[in-house]
């Protein structure tokens, strides 16, 4: 199970790669919009973490392309951005994203959301699922 991280900020992408790796989740990284669409289509990841502001086209264009393709339309997409546009969360949901998280991203929140979408068989994810079942 692999998660695609589409993020041009190398600090943030490395942070996500290493934190997810520590939780037993494999990742691939795309650093621009075109690469994100190509890698998603080629590798069909379990989920996509998509930054909205990237070079080579915006994350919104990536989201539209992913949701328009029969190959990638069912892959859950979590978007994030540090943008000041208050309409962005609604816009991305209307385009088919599962969720919008403002930057800086709280890893725990992101990981919980990711686990609810892809249910990885990792110890932390199992613990979270058991905790959720008990509540």
């Amino acid at each position: 199970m692999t998660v695609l991280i589409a993020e041009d900020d190398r600090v943030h992408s490395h942070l996500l790669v290493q934190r997810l790796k520590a939780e037993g989740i494999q990742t691939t990284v795309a650093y621009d919009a075109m690469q994100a669409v190509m890698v998603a289509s080629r590798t069909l990841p379990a989920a996509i973490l998509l930054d909205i502001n990237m070079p080579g086209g915006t994350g919104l264009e990536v989201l539209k392309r992913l949701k328009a393709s029969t190959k990638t339309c069912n892959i859950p997409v979590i978007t994030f951005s540090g943008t000041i546009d208050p309409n962005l969360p609604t816009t991305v949901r209307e385009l088919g994203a599962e969720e919008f998280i403002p930057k800086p991203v709280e890893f725990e929140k992101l990981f919980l959301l990711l686990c609810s979408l892809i249910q990885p068989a990792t110890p932390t994810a199992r613990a979270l699922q058991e905790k959720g079942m008990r509540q």
Partner: protein
Amino acid sequence: MQSHESAVSRAALEEQVGGDHQLLEELTDLFCGDYPQLMEQLTAAAANRDYPKAAYAAHTLKGMVGNFGAQAAWDLAQTIECAAKSQAENLLPMSQRLDEELRRVAQGLRALGKGVPQ
């Protein structure tokens, strides 16, 4: 003038890296390697009144420092991004202030990296 240690939030950093100090060092190296180039792009765009490029560079820098809880740098980058989007005239002096603040962030990260137990 604030000390460079206060340019970043230790608490925010600890939370972001989940207590992984090796990861903190790696992120510091990435930041110190990448921000000067983005700062150059911002300065050039500000000098040439290339507002979309200036806004993009400021936005990216804002995202980078947000990872470290560097509030003053984040605020400055945010101000520049907004100013560039409204095509303000004073981008260059603001960019110079951001450059100084980013140096403090880099120094603060290095200092925190040396100060934490491995």
